[in-house]
């Protein structure tokens, strides 16, 4: 911590606690009856505080708080600028105990005020930056934005990041739309195919019924035939016939053998 830092900090603390400084207050109270002086003093105090805030904003690392401080500074500036005309009116009034020179001096002071107010840095650097289309609304005077119509401010600037994001967002939206189009076409085709299948199935239902009845009939016929066939085959294969067949066969073979023997001799 250097000496300079200490000095600055002491100055800041003194300023902060000036209101407890009785002597200073006495000086200030001299101007108690004078409305102009009072107002002027108030404006001066506000100006000081605004300047301080601007300084701290420029030193701030955190962008969000910097932005907030800048906004406050702008608000104060706007308020002060509003009060200036009031002060001007008061400046022209004659107050007892005031010389003509002092009156003129007061006028000059008032005139100098707007410049001083405007001079307070509120983060609107004159460097050329994108304004992102906010400039158009600056022309509307009824609608008051905090920033006084100065939209080329850091707050509204499009950094590379944000413009990149915006572009990506647009691209993704377009891609989504394309995808959805493809899906909708596919669904159309599916719907058409499904209704065609529906109709085809409707067409085939009575055919299937017909097939069903015909096949049932054929199956019944077949069963009948099978049963009859079984009976017939059983009859043929009955054991009595079988034995008779074998005996007759043996007899014939015997006769044949006898004949053969006879003929051979």
């Amino acid at each position, binding site marked *: 911590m250097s000496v300079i830092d200490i000095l600055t900090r002491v100055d800041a603390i003194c300023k902060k606690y000036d209101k407890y400084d009785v002597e200073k207050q006495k000086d200030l109270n001299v101007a108690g009856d004078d409305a102009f002086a009072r107002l002027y003093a108030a404006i001066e105090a506000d100006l000081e505080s605004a300047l301080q805030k601007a300084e701290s904003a420029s030193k701030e690392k955190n962008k969000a708080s910097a932005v907030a401080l800048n906004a406050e500074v702008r608000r104060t500036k706007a308020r002060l600028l509003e009060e200036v005309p009031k002060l001007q009116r008061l400046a022209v009034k004659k107050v007892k105990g005031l010389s003509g020179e002092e009156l003129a001096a007061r006028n000059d002071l008032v005139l100098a005020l707007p410049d001083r107010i405007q001079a307070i840095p509120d983060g609107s650097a004159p460097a050329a930056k994108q304004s992102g289309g906010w400039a158009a609304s600056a022309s509307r005077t009824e609608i008051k934005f905090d920033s006084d119509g100065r939209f080329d401010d850091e707050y509204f600037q499009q950094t590379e990041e944000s413009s990149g994001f915006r572009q990506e967002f647009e691209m993704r939206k377009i891609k989504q739309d394309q995808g959805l189009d493809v899906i909708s*076409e596919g669904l*159309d*085709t599916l719907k*058409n195919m499904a*209704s*065609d299948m*529906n*109709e085809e199935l*409707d*067409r085939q239902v009575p055919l299937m019924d017909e097939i069903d009845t015909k096949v049932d009939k054929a199956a019944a016929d077949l069963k009948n035939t099978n049963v009859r066939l079984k009976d017939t085959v059983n009859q043929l294969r009955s054991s009595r016939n079988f034995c008779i067949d074998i005996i007759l066969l043996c007899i014939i073979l015997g006769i044949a053998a006898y004949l053969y023997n006879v003929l051979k001799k």
Partner: protein
Amino acid sequence: MASSDPNKLMAKADKLTKLSLTRWSADWKSATQLYEQAAIGYRVAKNHEKAKIAFEKASKGQEMLSSPWDAAKHMESAAALAKEVGNWTEVADFYKRASELYMVCSRPQPASDALAKGARALEDAVPDEAIQLYTEACSILEEDDKEQMAFDLYRAATCVYIKLEKYTDAATFLLRWGLAADKCSATNSQCKAYLSAIIVYLYAHDFKQAEKCYNDCSQIDVFLRNDHGRCASKLLSAYSEGDIEEIKRLGQSSTISNLDHVIIRLARKLPTGEVCALKTEAAEEQEEPLDENDLT
């Protein structure tokens, strides 16, 4: 060997059937058998003319034996061979005879099938005859309450009409198709048929007819609410406004791409150059009443 046998069989069979002093009644049974064998032999030998004659005679034999089913089957084979020969009148006659025989058997399905086969055979050669056969086939099925089967026939007939560039006929046929679809509550086919009819009318530059057709079809709830109905109304409004881009876009849309491919071809060609004429016509009609008002 293959050609001599069928010849011999034919000769024998002819002898059996020819009535003469020695033969008082023709022996159709054996004759038919011989005829069938001869016909098969000729077919194998690719002798279409003789095979056709053999099948004809076999069919007649079967008729005599009162088996119309076999007779019809033989007639169909004869007709197929006649197609190979290229004798179109005979093709038509044979198929019609076959269909009649099937109807005698009280089997309308094969009857219409026979007519459909005949129509398909005649599509290229004698398209008018083909259309007649298709129409008959459709009526046979409709009488039998089997409209569902008729859809394919309607489709084929429409294709033939469009090939012949008979657009009004095609559109009328499409409307008939729609009617058949309505009877069997096949709403998808019905709406597709109506949309196709409107497209055909538009293709034929007949905007008034197309509008009338659309008005008629909008009486039917299903069509009005359906995708196809909406597409039709968009098409007609695009036409009346003369918006060629819109027409082209609608022609590419998926609703139209689901129709029959012949219709798709027409739809893609749709803004047939006279759209502006339609617009001015409509504008002229509007101007006339204004003139009358001015005079009074």
